[in-house]
């Protein structure tokens, strides 16, 4: 990296407000970026990655303020200069690509109008030129129908395409620097590859410098020249990508690697009779068919992972099993006898046997109820516990999920961390004493280290209580870690199923192969190699 310095941040300090008090969330971070260089910024949520990334644009979110340090972009001190001048730089010389393109495109305007807005208001080019340019960039980003896609509204375009359209939009003024804030986190693995490759190519074509923010090491390894690791607003270490992957210096960085190595021991015993048997189930939302002829068996005391991209029908299958969505054809057997299709016609005991844990623990817990009530209610409703017996049961459950009962029993969900909230979700499911727990993407919203804690807890509970899990996920690493059996779904159908060892060992079904090969690996040459292999196969 001999190029001249584009961005130089020194001793950056940023405070965040919670209630009336300000506390430091970025504690003296230094950062240097050369022209054309890509820096990966990684860490768990709350590490201050996005805050640092936005500060590189001289921007602080509401409730944050930059309190110290210097941010120098191409010789301009972004902290000293006027807001008008910062506005002149944003979008023109420093652009931003957000995590959720679906939320970050304005739903009221066509994509091309939003593309043209930047170049036109910054006076870079006229509207007609901007439209031609947009089509050219859409083509380079390998969007389908580059001439027409810009004239669609955001809701008419898929998530992966939107993310590419947003990268094109960021390129509109040919900026010197782009901040990518978790650009592929919300995408399926198969889509993630396409977007990642498109981003990498376009940044190289225009020799644009970039800060690539993510929590996924394997992803950043494909795109970044250097990697900087942040933890709670402080730098842990920084190194060239290959050097860091080969030999991380700090323990924290090593722990980020280690998470992926968690795995429960292989099972050798043969599965018993099916606990739940899904037989030929089809289902639809209104007239839109979602599931077609789905069949599989779930065995007692085992974990079955259901994998597939979003829209493949994983969660809908769960809704059919729980009775939330009566199927249009087929039946669900529980311990050999059919469950009534609709929730209303199931007995309380049938309801008790199947419990759910949700992806967003935040929205799945009533924020106004204390943990005592949140966990106590199912125990009261299904098991008829009252008074002291109920309190004792709630305390047992809290101890079971490794939260100190005296400290936590009277807390509100708002007073818990993300991982703790998910633990409450688990306790609430356990309170009903079910035989099957359906876990719908329960670790997707969590950091890797917290994920590991939840997976270990679920595994321990399974061993102690003999629970069965139906584990819905799109994360293959999680499947490798905890599954006994695997069902692969695509477009509402089961395309592959069997014991984990069989699914993960070649020969694979074509779609399983695609899913497995799309999972990023900790090798900076992985993406290049994969794309070459796929191109060679045609």
């Amino acid at each position: 990296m001999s190029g001249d310095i584009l961005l130089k941040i020194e001793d950056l300090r940023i405070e965040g407000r919670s209630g009336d008090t300000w506390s430091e969330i970025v504690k003296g971070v230094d950062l240097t970026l050369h022209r054309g260089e890509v820096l990966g910024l990684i860490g768990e949520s709350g590490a201050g990655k996005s805050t640092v990334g936005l500060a590189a644009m001289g921007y602080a979110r509401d409730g944050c303020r930059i309190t110290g340090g210097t941010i120098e972009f191409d010789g301009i001190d972004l902290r000293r200069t006027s807001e008008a001048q910062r506005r002149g730089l944003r979008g023109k010389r420093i652009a931003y690509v957000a995590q959720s393109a679906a939320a970050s495109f304005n739903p009221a305007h066509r994509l091309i109008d939003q593309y043209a807005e930047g170049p036109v208001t910054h006076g870079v080019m006229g509207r007609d030129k901007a439209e031609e340019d947009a089509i050219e960039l859409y083509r380079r980003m390998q969007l389908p129908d580059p001439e027409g896609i810009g004239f669609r509204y955001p809701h008419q375009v898929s998530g992966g395409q939107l993310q590419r359209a947003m990268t094109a939009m960021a390129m509109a003024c040919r900026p010197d620097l782009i901040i990518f804030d978790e650009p592929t986190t919300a995408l399926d693995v198969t889509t993630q590859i396409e977007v990642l490759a498109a981003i990498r190519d376009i940044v190289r074509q225009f020799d644009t410098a970039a800060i690539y923010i993510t929590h996924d090491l394997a992803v950043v390894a494909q795109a970044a020249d250097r990697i900087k690791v942040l933890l709670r607003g402080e730098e842990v270490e920084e190194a060239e990508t290959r050097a860091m992957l080969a030999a991380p210096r700090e323990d924290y960085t090593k722990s980020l690697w280690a998470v992926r190595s968690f795995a429960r021991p292989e099972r050798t015993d043969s599965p018993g009779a099916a606990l739940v048997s899904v037989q030929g189930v089809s289902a639809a939302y209104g007239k839109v068919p979602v599931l077609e002829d789905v069949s599989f068996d779930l065995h007692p005391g085992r974990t079955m992972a259901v994998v597939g991209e979003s829209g493949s029908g994983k969660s809908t299958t769960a809704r059919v099993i729980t009775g939330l969505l009566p199927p249009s054809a087929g039946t669900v057997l529980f311990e050999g006898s059919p469950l009534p299709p609709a929730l209303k016609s199931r007995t309380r005991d049938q309801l008790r046997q199947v419990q759910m844990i949700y992806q967003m623990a935040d929205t799945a817990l009533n924020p106004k109820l204390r943990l005592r009530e949140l966990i106590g209610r199912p125990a009261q409703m299904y098991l008829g516990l009252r008074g002291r017996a109920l309190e004792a049961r709630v305390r047992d459950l809290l101890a079971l999920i490794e939260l100190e009962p005296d400290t936590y029993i009277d807390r509100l969900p708002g007073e818990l961390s993300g991982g703790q909230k998910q633990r409450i979700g688990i306790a609430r499911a356990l309170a009903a004493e079910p035989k099957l727990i359906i876990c719908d993407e329960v670790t997707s919203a969590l950091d890797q280290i917290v994920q590991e804690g939840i997976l270990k807890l679920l595994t321990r509970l399974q061993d102690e209580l003999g629970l069965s899990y139906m584990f819905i996920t799109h994360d293959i690493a999680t499947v490798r870690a905890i599954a006994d059996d695997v069902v692969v779904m695509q477009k509402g159908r089961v395309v592959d199923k069997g014991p984990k060892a069989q699914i993960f060992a070649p020969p694979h079904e074509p779609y399983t192969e695609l899913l497995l090969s799309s999972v990023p690996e900790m090798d900076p040459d992985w993406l290049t190699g994969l794309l070459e292999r796929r191109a060679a196969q045609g």
Partner: protein
Amino acid sequence: MILTRVALGIGLLFVVSLVIFWATELLPGDLASQLLGQSATPETLAALREQLGLNDPAPVRYWNWLSGALTGDFGVSLATNRPIADLIGARLGNTVFLALYAAALSVPIALTLGILSALWRNSIFDRAANAGALGAISLPEFFVAYILVLWLAQTGLFPSMVRINPTTTMGERLYMTFLPALTLTLVVTAHMMRMTRAAIINLMASPYIEMARLKGLSPLRIVLRHALPNALAPIINVVALNLAYLITGVVVVEVVFVYPGLGQLMVDAVSNRDIAVVQAVALIFATAYVGLNLIADVLSTLSNPRLMHRR
């Protein structure tokens, strides 16, 4: 979708007409004995009942009333013996004129104030606009009206009473009805302004607004082009609600300024027990409410690309 909404609106009006008819049926007393008063004899009462069709079963009378109303024939006023359509005609025009006048003043003012106070949130302007609007809405209408009379009519700037006749020109008419229109403007502006402000501010935390900021757009452009189009649905609905209020709820203002509108007619008809007029005016008010809300729903749909452009 829009057709379904229109059909629902018509269905709703039908139900409302049933309710109006049924409610007036419930009123105590018998029309014929009311009309005849002291001079009633059993024979004259029976004759009058026969003449008014009061002996017919309720469904038949309802059908006669509704089919007449649909063709603009509301029957004859029991108090004055004149056709109700004539009574209502001119007054309906006056009421609609005043409502449109007040709307033409209040809607632009409310939207501008709402947008500016969202733009300069928590500034002195924002606080002053909110305090002023809330003050105006908290005072009773008649009080606002009398204050305006005190300030603007006593000084001779504007007339305190509205005297309209067929020869009045548009200019004179606007001048004479300025005070009632201003009173109504003060009353309805706050609601629309605060909804505009709240709807915009509610969106200002959205990721796409942050994206607009990070594209280096000016705050005014962000509010007008990125927040406002997405805030239109609630704003349109509040505007429609207030327009409906301007047509149906202006009795007090009409009385203060002696304005010959529908509100006064309704009040007079109730005190005279002129049931036929009450029914007719109630049906017109209901039509205004349902119609304006229908228009609001259609406009909200049109303003939402997610509903207009399917995948």
